């Protein structure tokens, strides 16, 4: 087991495209770090740099005490689970798991013991003699995990391992991966584009965009104090409402908004953020420090436990989403007033998108 650290890591492709910019991440021993971001943000490239499948242009990658930049993938003491599993199609499940150990000259009886142990943990013992094509998607996923486990590596790397599974299986496997990682206590890096997966799995959540880190920290920190509009809209579903506001005498100024006193809006205006789940229906006046929003309901989605209410404000295509508990009896076309308390309001720079204050 070991900690993994990246310091000032860059990746520049021949031709000058900078895929990864100056990244610093430190993952303590046994922690699970999730890299999340939209496609093309450099998260997979970063993972592959840790694996040794891509060269590191600049900076250091350390596993434990050693710098591994110049080591072959097989010498870094890592194991990787691929998105499409990358199982050897002509080998049995057993051989798939044993292949890496055999290449390292592990004694036969130890290979046997490790493979059986991994198969038992992952509940794939009955399939050891089958070829991958005779397995279901979920079973293949388990074999891919098994191939990683038997190696007893210092670091696990997961490259969107669940994205080829159907929704139900994905949730089930997500829980299992978390449990397994905890039980084995292996430092792990996990890449996904699914923010929910990222939130539920991560000890350390790293949100990436365009090759750099937007924010890193615990999932709840990122949820409660997003460092930028990018993080704000990426973490949480439905995404945070982001409303451009002007600086009024007593607070934010925008069509349909009231209250919000105490928010320090810069003279040039700002972006006001409020999560849909923090909006409550109000009747009557809104306290001065809360934010009130009034808008005509355009659509209502009732999913049982909660209700999503949509509507326009300001007349320039800006849309508000409110996530209300239980069944909200609202008819499309009627106006509704919602409000959020002061601690649930976020303010971002309207130019850079960076968080203001707090």
């Amino acid at each position, binding site marked *: 087991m070991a900690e993994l650290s990246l310091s000032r890591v860059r990746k520049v492709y021949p031709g000058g495209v900078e895929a990864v910019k100056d990244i610093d991440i430190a993952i303590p021993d046994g922690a699970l770090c999730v890299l999340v971001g939209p496609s093309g943000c450099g998260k997979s490239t970063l993972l*592959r740099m840790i694996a*040794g499948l891509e060269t590191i242009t600049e900076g250091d990658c350390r596993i434990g005490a050693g710098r591994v930049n110049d080591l072959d993938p097989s010498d870094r003491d890592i*194991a990787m689970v*691929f998105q*499409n599993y*990358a199982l*050897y199609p*002509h080998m049995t499940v057993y051989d798939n798991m044993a*292949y890496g150990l055999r*290449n390292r000259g592990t004694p036969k009886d130890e290979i046997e013991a490790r493979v059986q142990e991994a198969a038992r943990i992952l509940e794939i013992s009955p399939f050891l003699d089958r070829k991958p094509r005779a397995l279901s998607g979920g079973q293949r996923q388990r074999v891919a995990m098994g191939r990683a486990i038997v190696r007893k590596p210092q670091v696990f790397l997961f490259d969107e391992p669940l994205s080829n599974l159907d929704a139900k299986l994905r949730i089930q496997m997500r829980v299992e991966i978390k449990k397994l990682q905890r039980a084995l206590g292996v430092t792990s890096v996990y890449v996904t584009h699914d923010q929910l997966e990222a939130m539920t799995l991560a000890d350390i959540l790293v949100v990436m965009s365009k090759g750099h880190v937007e924010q890193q920290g615990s999932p709840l920190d990122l949820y409660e104090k997003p460092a930028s509009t990018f993080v704000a809209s990426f973490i949480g579903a439905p995404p945070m409402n982001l409303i451009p506001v002007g600086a009024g005498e007593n607070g934010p100024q925008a069509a349909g908004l009231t209250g919000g006193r105490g928010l320090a809006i810069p003279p040039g205006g700002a972006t006001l953020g409020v999560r849909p789940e923090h909006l409550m229906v109000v009747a009557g006046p809104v306290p001065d420090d809360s934010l009130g929003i009034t808008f005509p309901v355009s659509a209502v989605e009732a999913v049982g436990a909660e209700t999503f209410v949509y509507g326009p404000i300001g007349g320039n295509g800006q849309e508000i989403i409110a996530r209300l508990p239980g069944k909200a009896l609202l008819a499309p076309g009627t106006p509704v007033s919602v409000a959020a308390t002061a601690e649930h309001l976020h303010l971002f720079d309207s130019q850079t998108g960076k968080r203001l204050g707090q």
Partner: protein
Amino acid sequence: MAAPLDTPAPKSVRRDWIPHVVIAIGIFITAFPLWVAFVASTLSNPEIAQAPMPLLPGNQAGANYGEALLQGGRSGRILTPPVWEMMLNSTVMALSIAVGKIIISILSAYAVVFFRFPFRMAFFWMIFITLMLPVEVRIVPTIQVITNLNMMNTYAGLTIPLIASATATLLFRQFFLTIPDELVEAAKIDGAGPMKFFRDVVLPLSVTNIAALFVILFLYGWNQYLWPLLIGTDARMQTIVIGMSKMIDSAGGPTDWNMVMATAILALLPPVLVVILMQRWFVKGLVETEK
């Protein structure tokens, strides 16, 4: 304008047997020459000469095939070597060409696909261009090259120049491009270098392609004509196809047709058996090599 559904359509009844009849005719045209050749190979020469020739097998099969295999046939004053010797030559030629081609093209395709190195594309085009230089267009200079290398009338001369093949290289290249990148990466993490990856992963995955190519290349090697005619001028080096054609006296002199037909049957049996026994791979091979 559609016909009412419930009226029995006499047309479709009539149509039902038309395909079968047409296909039966096709099969007849395919099989008839083979049947006649087989029948002739079981008759004595006088029986063949009595027009019309019988269309049912005679009782000379043992004698004819025995004589052909052990003594050879003749046309005019030319005497061919025993057919078994020529079959041996054909077998050596067909197997060497098939195996040799598969080995050198799988290696070169592996190099071109799985590595990056200077002049990679130049080499690829060099191989590709050989498609446009069949033996037929370089007859005389090729013989000079073979003579200079002392390869006339040797198995090496009969086979080595034919084992360079753009078709097989292209086929393997096509297949290698479909191997997922992640498989290569998984192998790297599992500690497999390029040759280990080749042996443990690429080769086993290529088995059906190799089988398909083998069928096509076996036919190609066995059925060669111009090349052995040029290189195997010595009777000892004759292939069975060449030997059979030498038994026919094209000047119009007397020909031992029972010998010719017995030899023809022996010459066509191996490739036909390979095609029938390995039909699945044969069809795959045909389709893939034409891509």
